């Protein structure tokens, strides 16, 4: 049986209330007559200047990381500091790569963030679907519980968690980092909000009429609808897992670190080569910056979509 054999109705049969087109047109005319009345004012020069300044503040430390990473230590530790890139970028990157064992750290971070993001997306979509479209006893109470768990910071359980991981023989091992973060309350909530709006009840009912069981409905109807939100959740979770510091710092050591843990190695020594430190910081950030350059618009949209409105 394929998806096509399910009697899927894509159009919403319910009559739409009101006449949105007419009313927006009327409103638009009124806005045109009094341009200052609407919400979305056009930006004046001052707004561009202020936003440009904000963008500069946001991006400058990253630019300067690159400048410092491409200079040598003596140049970086002079006043005034350099503002333009120097000739030593590749040399410093290579040295930082070796000194901080960044190769291994990158692979570790990729595994950790990849597994966590995949499992978070899968379980969040399953639970989000159940909370949005299935009826069961205690649904609201359980959903409140999910939201409540967002308030419990991971630091509060860190001592027994460390003991648990030692008992399991997972000390300094990646599973110790992965398992506690396999699910995310924010993710569940995010998918629930998305599916409640994006997935018409009729689709689920049609699947039922056709005799599909819940898992089949999930696989053939929910997953295709949820795909855009899943992509966004994947990226956000990936960024979080990649950057996570506290728990990996405690449970991993320098022989088997993730990238943020490995970076502390660079600054902990007594002989400090600043341009080397910056080269490491640059390397640790580059994968995520690449993600942002390619998917920035989607990540921005996803964060805005997940926000509580009101």
């Amino acid at each position, binding site marked *: 049986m394929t998806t096509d054999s399910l009697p899927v109705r894509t159009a919403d049969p319910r009559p739409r209330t009101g006449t949105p087109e007419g009313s927006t047109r009327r409103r638009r005319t009124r806005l045109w007559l009094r341009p200052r009345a609407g919400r979305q004012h056009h930006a004046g020069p001052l*707004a561009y200047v202020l*936003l440009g300044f904000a963008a500069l503040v946001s991006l400058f430390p990253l630019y300067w990381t690159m400048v410092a990473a491409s200079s040598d230590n003596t140049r970086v530790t002079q006043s005034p500091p350099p503002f333009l890139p120097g000739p030593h970028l590749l040399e410093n990157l290579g040295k930082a790569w070796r000194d901080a064992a960044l190769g291994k750290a990158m692979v570790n971070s990729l595994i950790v963030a990849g597994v966590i993001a995949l499992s978070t997306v899968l379980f969040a979509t399953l639970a989000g679907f159940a909370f949005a479209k299935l009826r*069961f006893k205690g649904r609201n109470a359980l959903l409140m519980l999910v939201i409540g768990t967002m*308030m419990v910071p991971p630091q509060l359980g860190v001592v*027994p968690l460390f003991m648990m991981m030692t008992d399991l023989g997972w000390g300094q091992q990646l599973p110790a980092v992965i398992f506690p973060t396999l699910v995310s309350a924010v993710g*569940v909530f995010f998918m629930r909000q998305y599916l409640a709006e994006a997935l018409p009840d009729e689709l689920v009912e049609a699947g039922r009429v056709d005799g599909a069981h819940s898992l089949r409905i999930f696989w053939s109807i929910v997953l295709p609808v949820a795909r855009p939100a899943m992509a966004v959740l994947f990226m956000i979770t990936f960024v979080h897992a990649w950057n996570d510091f506290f728990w990996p710092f405690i449970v991993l050591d320098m022989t088997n670190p993730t990238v943020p843990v490995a970076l502390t190695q660079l600054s902990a020594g007594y002989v400090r080569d*600043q341009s080397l430190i910056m080269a490491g910081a640059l390397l640790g950030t580059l994968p995520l910056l690449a993600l942002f350059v390619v998917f*920035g618009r989607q990540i921005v949209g996803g964060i805005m979509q997940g926000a509580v409105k009101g």
Partner: protein
Amino acid sequence: MATSTPISQGGAPGTAPPPAKRAREDRQGLRNLLHRLDLRGAPYAFVAPFFVVFAAFSFYPLVYTAWISLHHVELSSLNLMEWVGFDNYTALWNDDRFWNALANTFTIGVISTVPQLLMALGLAHLLNYRMRGSTFFRVASLTPYATSVGAAALVFTMLFERDFGMINWMLSLVGVDHIDFENNKWAAQIAISTIVIWRWTGYNALLYLAAMQAVPRDRYEAAAIDGASRWQQFLKVTVPGIRATIVFTIVLSTIGATQLFGEPLIFGQGPNGITGGADNQYQTLGLLLYEEGWKNYQMGRAATVAWAMFLLLILVFVVQRVLKRALARRS
């Protein structure tokens, strides 16, 4: 209801349906049963992974932390737990480092959260304008969110360096003498807060922006008709319109602030990191927890600090609820 045939009699041979029909009914029955089971059970199966993982790796450890905090446990011998009652708590209460860390967590929390959220509000307002390149500005303000605590703290530590740091160089241009950001208590706390502010302002701005776009237009029109200036519209329409989101970000930032760990640790550059500077001048509760557990090897005491943090969070939530209720009553 009781069946018409008492169980003791069993099925009378004459009343049983013919075998073929019975098999069909059985299959139908089985399918119905499976269907009902699916309808009833599947939702629980779908939400189960979340709750199982949460129970095992968050809830159980949280409760167990309380139990550990009543014991003397050393990092080197984790299975030897010696009951000491509330000794860890009284020791913590009498420990100056605890009150110092509590005060530091509070001050760093305030000087990082308040400017951060105010700036995010302003930034969101600007991003809400209709303009060219709005996507660029949105992505640019979110970019710091993509950097790890590690990388961000390393860069800012260098920018705040005493002798050659860029910030001191810029301050010297306007005639301010070099500030020793590492050893001056307030300067260090401001520097650490700067890292937090830099990383999270854009993120919060996007949350506000989303909420702002949901504020109904007619409220602005009504305000404009009443002669409200843009600034008045911002104060009287925008801010009340996104109050729920503002409360949400305050809660999130407060949780973040109580947990502050990576920024001060890395800002301390190695040995001074864990103690939060040579004089504990920027040691947070998170750092104190780590110092007790993984530097002094006293896991029981670390658990006590964790529970102190938990109680602190509960206190914050109670205060926040009371404030929220008071605000709701006023409007």
